[in-house]
């Protein structure tokens, strides 16, 4: 029926090698690398170490810090709002808590603020697309929590630190691992359909870099299931939600220097709204749609680093923004879905990575940066498979899952993956898939403390500003482990909600609002000679065809 369905003839010939080597490989596992070997592999092949992709920031609170070029471009940009033409005299929404973002961290924060006694009418969630449009719904593999008798939060701590190259902020990791079982219990109580045995025991799998089976999942729709349940509960509680209304700038109180609200912008009508809030929670997610180093991405359409931009302009400290996570197994072919995610759960279930010669080249459950580096090496050294559209990839031998775990395992445990490929004529129960790393996650971000208060480079909190989820840095160090992001958003989303509720109770007077913090920032931009046409946040990426843009005129 469609064009480009299934594998072309030349690729089918190469699949024979995978099939022929499978019986032997079923008995084999590649050995685990030592910490030293991992380090060497990552330094040589990981995109973080590719020259020319990063630079030092020239303005702002973290001047001199190395970040990816695409991030530096946004931070060295003019605000989208014109300081002198925004009318701050009339407030459209005067609330206790403003939550910016519409994913799992935002929903968790709103719920825990409600549980702590904040009137839902006094909480406003503002998000750029629909409530629930976030990377959360794309998280497939699972959520970590050390809740089996053979496991412990201590081991979860060690795994997370090791995966992050020991660059994580220890107190944040401790919060992550000790809150984890409680979070699972909370979600279970809300009605999340976790995979369980008949007696209620959680079915748990191994994730890359984890020493215990610790991944709780809901088939391969784990993030979607969590998101839709907590979203449903937020709406049941009557929290106000503004969809298609991203924040484009924060507001500050000139007296305290703290954050006191935001300028929101209706993406469809272009009207702006002024929000005054006692507490503002940034839950805006990461930067995947910036396509760092030219990579395709697994990320949601709205992952454009808006939160980083807004927080930096009020003086937040950024950390580990010179590192990004490239998920080892992105789709390399079919071209139409290139860069989309093939969940790590495939490897948890036993699928091996295989080069063009049918050889194993890495232990599949090493941390992600290690596996990604190994795949890049195989392709760079000529052991990859050239796709029909000229890209390169290695095989992910999915059919062996059913051989290892029994027929039907793939369709039962990986329905989203089965669908993703069968739509393009590839049946993963009998055919392997071509895979190559894809931009997946912002490892670093805004620095926070265990109460999710946003910190300045001096270590002092910025009054009135909290942050949770992918927008923050420190939890995952320089590389996040599988299953720790769904955990991050719920653990720190909850903590943000609790802190916000406490701050609301302690704050009796309404703050003042201004855009004063932009004066100093724009002076620096002026001095640097940044062209006025370069503006941020960008809100959405622009994928329009070049030909159309060249011929575009604005009449209406």
């Amino acid at each position: 029926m469609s064009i480009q369905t299934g594998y072309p003839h030349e690729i089918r010939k190469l699949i024979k090698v995978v099939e022929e080597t499978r019986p032997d490989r079923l008995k084999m596992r590649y050995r685990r690398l030592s910490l030293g070997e991992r380090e060497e592999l990552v330094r040589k092949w990981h995109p973080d170490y590719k020259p020319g992709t990063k630079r030092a920031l020239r303005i702002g609170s973290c001047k001199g810090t190395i970040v990816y070029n695409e991030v530096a471009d946004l931070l060295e940009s003019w605000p989208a709002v014109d300081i002198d033409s925004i009318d701050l005299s009339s407030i459209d929404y005067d609330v206790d808590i403003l939550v910016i973002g519409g994913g799992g961290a935002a929903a968790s924060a709103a719920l825990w603020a409600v549980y702590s006694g904040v009137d839902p009418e006094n909480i406003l969630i503002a998000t750029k697309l629909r409530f629930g449009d976030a990377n959360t719904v794309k998280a497939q593999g699972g959520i970590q929590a050390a809740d089996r008798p053979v496991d412990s939060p201590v081991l979860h701590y060690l795994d997370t630190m090791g995966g992050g190259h020991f660059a994580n902020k220890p107190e944040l990791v401790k919060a992550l691992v000790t809150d984890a079982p409680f979070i699972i219990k909370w979600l279970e109580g809300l009605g999340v359909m976790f995979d369980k045995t008949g007696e209620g025991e959680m079915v748990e799998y191994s994730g890359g870099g984890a020493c215990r089976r610790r991944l709780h999942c809901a088939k391969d729709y784990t993030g979607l299931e969590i998101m839709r349940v907590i979203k449903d509960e937020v709406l049941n509680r009557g929290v106000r939600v503004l969809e298609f209304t991203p924040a484009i700038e924060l507001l500050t109180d000139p007296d305290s220097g703290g954050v006191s609200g935001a300028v929101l912008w209706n993406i469809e009508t272009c009207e702006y709204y002024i929000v005054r809030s006692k507490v503002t929670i940034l839950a805006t997610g990461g930067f995947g749609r910036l396509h760092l180093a030219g990579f395709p991405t697994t990320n949601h359409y709205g992952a454009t680093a808006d939160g980083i931009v807004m927080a930096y302009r009020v003086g937040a400290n950024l950390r580990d923004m010179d590192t990004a996570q490239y998920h080892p197994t992105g789709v390399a072919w079919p071209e139409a879905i290139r860069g989309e995610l093939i969940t790590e759960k495939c490897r948890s279930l036993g699928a091996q990575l295989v080069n063009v010669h049918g050889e194993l080249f890495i232990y599949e459950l090493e941390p992600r940066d290690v596996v990604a580096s190994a795949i890049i090496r195989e392709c760079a050294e000529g052991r990859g498979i050239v796709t029909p559209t000229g890209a390169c990839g290695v095989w992910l031998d999915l059919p062996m899952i059913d051989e290892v775990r029994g027929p039907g395992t793939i369709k039962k445990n990986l329905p989203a993956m089965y669908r993703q490929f069968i739509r393009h004529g590839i049946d993963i129960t009998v055919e392997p898939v071509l895979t190559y790393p894809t931009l997946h996650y912002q490892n670093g971000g805004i620095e926070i403390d265990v109460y999710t208060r946003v910190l300045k480079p001096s270590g002092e909190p910025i009054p009135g500003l909290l942050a949770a989820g992918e927008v923050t840095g420190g939890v995952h160090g320089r590389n996040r482990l599988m299953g720790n992001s769904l955990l991050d958003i719920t653990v720190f989303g909850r903590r943000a909600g609790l802190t916000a509720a406490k701050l609301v109770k302690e704050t009796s007077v309404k703050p003042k609002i201004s855009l004063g913090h932009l004066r100093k920032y724009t002076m620096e931009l002026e001095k640097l000679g940044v062209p006025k046409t370069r503006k941020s946040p960008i809100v959405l990426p622009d994928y329009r065809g070049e030909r159309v843009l060249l011929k575009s005129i604005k009449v209406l």
Partner: protein
Amino acid sequence: MVEKTLTQSRGSVVGKKMIRIYFMGRAYEVPEGLTIMKALEYAGFRLVRGVGCRGGFCGACPTAYRLPGEYKLRIGLACQTIAEDGMHLVILPYSPMEKPRYNIEELKPDAGSIIALFPEVTRCVACNTCTKACPQGLDVMDAVQAIIRGDIAKAANTIFDCISCGLCSLRCPAEIRHVHLFQLVRRLYGKYILPKAKHLEIRVKEIEEGKYEEELEKLMKTPIEELKRLYSEREIEKA
């Protein structure tokens, strides 16, 4: 191999052969091999509605289309369906419906609780149009019928893979609000019918009693070289 051209779709390499698609009746020439979503972007649309995760999970881009010479109305996701020559299409990003509010703690996992909130469920005429409209290929009607019978487990598991795109609700002659109905059904099943994880309760209690506090505090203060040793020597369970 076909000659390549790089489109704006961030590294999407597509053949140079052009096809014609009709977006809400207007014809656009786009390169062959793109998804409907990328084809529309190539044609110059900067999407705000009808776009979300771009990976088949969020339900923002349900699309109805007809192929040339056919009367059959086909269904797909714009981010997952390849544009074809002569295709007439529309993206239907929204299905109008208000979510009824409820307190999950006060409900029972039975047909009565559900029908009280969604009385229209009983109007199902078993026409199966919902099932035909599902871009996920789910047995939607079977789930609705299971709800009426009070088989919550069957219903919840049948529509677990639902991405809430709302196409079934747009097509349904009984005007059922499937998106919200199914959300309630899944929560009732997850909360009341799936057995609770006992090992989880035990661990939560242990943590509340501070069982791991001392060891974690100690680890937090451990120098990195020593942490590396502990990490390298930790015992690894079989995957």
